[in-house]
């Protein structure tokens, strides 16, 4: 498998570490359902057989965290984004919808 790090270019699998589902969002610790939310967030996974948005870490490269969209049945990588950009976009989106 090869993953195109937005910073470093295409690199082999052995430079990266997989680190789980990128679709789950860390809940608010102060919410009334915080305990349930954290249980769901930490332990429950959709684990779908097709496209999967997931976190990877360019461990032997630039240390960027990446959001990789990959088909887990074929291993075909559809897109690679910087986790920071994705997270910032999500935060500003929730801020926008809140305001």
């Amino acid at each position, binding site marked *: 498998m090869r993953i195109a790090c937005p*910073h*470093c*270019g295409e*690199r*082999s699998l*052995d*430079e990266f570490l997989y680190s789980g589902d990128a679709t789950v969002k860390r809940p608010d610790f102060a919410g009334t359902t915080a305990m349930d939310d954290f249980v769901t967030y930490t332990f429950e996974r959709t684990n779908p057989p097709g496209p999967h948005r997931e976190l990877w870490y360019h461990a*032997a*490269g*630039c*240390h*960027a965290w990446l959001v990789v969209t990959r088909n887990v049945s074929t291993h075909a990588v559809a897109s690679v984004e*910087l986790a*920071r950009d994705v997270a910032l976009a999500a935060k500003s989106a929730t801020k926008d919808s809140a305001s």
Partner: protein
Amino acid sequence: MADHILTPSSAFMDWHPPATPKLAASARETLTMASFAAARGKEQALREAISAAYGAVLPKSAGRVEAGGIAFVWAGPDQWLAITEHEGARDLEAELKEKLTGIASVVDQSDSRVVVRISGSRARSVLAKGVPIDLHPRAFAPGSVAITHASHVGIILWQVDDAPTYEAAMFRSYADSFAHWLFEAAAEYVSAQP
């Protein structure tokens, strides 16, 4: 106090580099380095400050530029290493801290990493035995930088010239293992070792 002056020592326990036109290696252990990382939202200000102070345009991604005796090597997102030859004469950390106050965090890395220089007509073949990236001139040239690994040792690799000459910077504690791999990989191209 003078008799107590501390003298630096090599990171290599066992260093017998090849030295042929096909392949030569040398260690550069007298460099001074500092890393600097842009503060959030200050990337542009940092670029301008470096350009003003050193006349260097910081490479946006994996690249290396030289200006005023300092090499600026991309070392990760919004992060660079400044490297200079002048052992002792220049405290890069202090210098950059002063020039980049409020726009970047600066950390002395002079001793974190050791740099090994590898050159010669066989340099590419030897590196191919450890480095899993494409070093063909069309893909990697003087000024190119890659953060990658060689034979299980993390390195920052850059090309210096078309000889070709490369330099690999690795964390100091790994230097000896890196050298061991390098000498074994080079054995095919180098006659009896000294």
